[in-house]
């Protein structure tokens, strides 16, 4: 993150870095491992871990003495989701959308260079599916991320396009110029399509949701097998259902009429 640490409290910053290290590293880490990873003294790390442990934010394995994230983290994560306005408002709409199209629905928000999935409704059949809430995907391989990015001001869009664009499949768009043109088209069409750009065989169609200031706050999309979601280009029925849902959700979030109106016209011309 940025450099203005001077106005922040160093120990809180370090404690947060320990939590993030535990979240992204191996499931359990020892004091020395963490100290080395974070470039801190062992005694400092030990003291921070003991403090975090008292708050149940980390816990120590009795046998190995190694540390992992504590149960309180789940409470905090759940609280984040519970207080997330877009997620809260999308619960019913997402269910309705999933039933209408017979596919899974995901709600996501841009967080840095990734899309954080804040809500996921399973495809309404009896197949085994894994909950993706809390997962994050690179923004450019997700219809949720692309449609959110397309609605951002130019400078933020340029920042996204200027960063790393990892290739996840043979279909991932990794050329920033191609992606920039795609975002323009998405902005005009009012929806984004992702066709096997993240996972082979899977596709997604998404539309952005706007708040009372007319700013994009996230996106809602239908995800499923490419042969149903993008049989020959985006499924018109799914595009219509997704745009309809995004428009209603935006209205609920207090979005100005221009966004709702712009999203209402179902256009299916963007590849």
């Amino acid at each position, binding site marked *: 993150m940025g450099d203005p640490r001077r106005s922040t409290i160093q120990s809180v910053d370090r404690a947060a870095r320990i939590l993030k290290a535990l979240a*992204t*590293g*191996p*499931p359990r880490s020892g004091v020395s491992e963490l100290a080395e990873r974070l470039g801190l003294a062992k005694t400092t790390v030990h003291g921070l871990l003991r403090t975090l442990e008292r708050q149940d934010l980390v816990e120590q394995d009795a046998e190995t003495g190694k540390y992992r994230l504590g149960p309180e983290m789940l409470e905090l994560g759940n609280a984040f989701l519970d207080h997330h306005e877009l997620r809260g408002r999308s619960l019913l709409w997402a269910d309705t959308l999933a039933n209408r199209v017979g596919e899974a629905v995901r709600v996501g928000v841009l967080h840095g260079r990734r899309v954080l999935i804040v809500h996921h409704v399973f495809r309404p059949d009896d*197949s*085994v*599916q*894994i909950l*993706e809430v809390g*997962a*994050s*995907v690179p923004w450019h391989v997700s219809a949720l991320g692309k449609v959110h990015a397309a609605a951002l001001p130019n400078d933020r869009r340029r920042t996204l396009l200027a960063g790393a664009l*990892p*290739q*996840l*499949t*043979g279909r*991932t768009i990794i050329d920033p110029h191609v992606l920039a043109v795609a975002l323009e088209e998405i902005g005009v069409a009012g929806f984004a399509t992702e066709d*096997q750009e*993240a*996972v*082979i*065989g*899977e596709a997604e169609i998404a539309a952005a949701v706007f708040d009372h200031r007319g700013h994009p706050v996230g996106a809602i999309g239908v995800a499923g*097998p490419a042969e149903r979601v993008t049989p020959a280009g985006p499924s018109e029925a799914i595009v219509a259902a997704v745009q309809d849902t995004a428009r209603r959700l935006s209205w609920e979030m207090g979005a100005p009429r221009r966004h709702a109106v712009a999203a209402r016209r179902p256009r299916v011309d963007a590849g």
Partner: protein
Amino acid sequence: MSANQRIRGASAPCDAAFVTRWLRGCAAQIAAHRDYLTQLDAAVGDADHGVNLDRGFVAVGSVLEAADGLPPGELLVQAGSTLVLRVGGAAGPLYGTAFREAGRCLGTARTFGVAHLTEALEAALQGVTALGAAVEGDKTMVDAWLPAIRALRDQAGAALPDALHAATVAAEAGAAATTAMEARKGRASYLGPRSVGHQDPGATSTALLFLALERAAG
């Protein structure tokens, strides 16, 4: 069998019966390891790898029933198309493409030897990487395919069973090595570093297909 056929058979030991044994062996291996594959997939994917592949290879079995007299390449193409249709997920397109490309490489040949088989498996891998853009070390099926093909190339000139045994050993070692890798492709890549410590289901099923290939050679 005529003397001529016997001589040609010595240098070109593979035929439609061999390919049929391979595909049936694939079905048997996948069925036997269905729950194990699904378990592996539950850790890094969506817990459907074993079930989906099993459904696909059962369908391949029915296709084989009706495919009497076809050249080996055509059998593989039909098996591939069946897998694309019936497996779903990422494994369907990937394995479907692999078998189809291998079949196309064999063309209309009635028999073929180790060299042509190696070429066909290379074509299969090329199909897989064109779809998935995965390279070695990404924690995907490529990590089992590539070592197997390298082993086959090293065994050029060896007898079929020896060459295929070396390929199986290499594929199994490659699959085992994915445990320590961080996934950079596919759904498992969503997990980032948390994917470390789990063996990749795709690499594992690829190793099973090479084991079936080795067994088909007797």
